[in-house]
């Protein structure tokens, strides 16, 4: 039983580390700010959450496990909020996406409010 939990924790830890690395690769490789935000907010949240989950699985202490799980919930709540705030702020401040962008239905609106 405890061994199974440890192996499960190891799997979660490795998956979390790999997702974090992929988020970093995404932030480095993707061509513009908003696309990088996808990588950082999704893969980053999943990576960090999986590592905290691994801590909860491997330690055999209810108080620690509970804190780790609360930490996962906290991470999943705050990451989208910070990504959303940053995206909104940069769009209003006039950081434009690159020429790949197909439709930008927010552009005209923010253009008006900038005046």
């Amino acid at each position: 039983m405890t061994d199974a939990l440890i192996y499960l924790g190891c799997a979660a830890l490795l998956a979390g580390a790999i997702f974090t690395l992929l988020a970093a690769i995404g932030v480095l490789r993707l061509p513009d700010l908003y696309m990088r935000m996808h990588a950082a907010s999704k893969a980053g949240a999943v990576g960090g959450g999986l590592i905290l989950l691994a801590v909860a699985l491997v330690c055999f202490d209810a108080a620690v496990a509970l804190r780790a799980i609360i930490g996962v919930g906290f991470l999943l709540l705050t990451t989208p909020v910070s990504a959303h705030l940053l995206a909104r702020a940069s769009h209003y401040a006039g950081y434009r996406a690159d020429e790949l962008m197909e439709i930008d239905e927010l552009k005209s609106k923010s253009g008006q409010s900038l005046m």
Partner: protein
Amino acid sequence: MSATVLSVVTMIALVILALALLLSVVRVIIGPSLPDRVLALDLLTVSAMGFVGTIAIRTGRALYLDIAIALALLGFLATVGFARYILSRQRPLSGSGGEGHP
């Protein structure tokens, strides 16, 4: 048996996370605009949180978990603050004075 597996796996995870930290730092340095750098710093904090969490597993000390959660909180607050700064730098908010010289 499981102790050796744990030790090896945490070592591998530490190496992967170190690589992730390095890549985020590259984006912080080259990032063409301020939001890019803020985003990379946010990811840097999450990676650092993962690093500390892995060390918590490796050493078996629950104290590190609290550090990891505090780091996550700090990263969130820092990003919120930076978003506010980006917004006010380019478009001064009404009543907050004109600090936004381009």
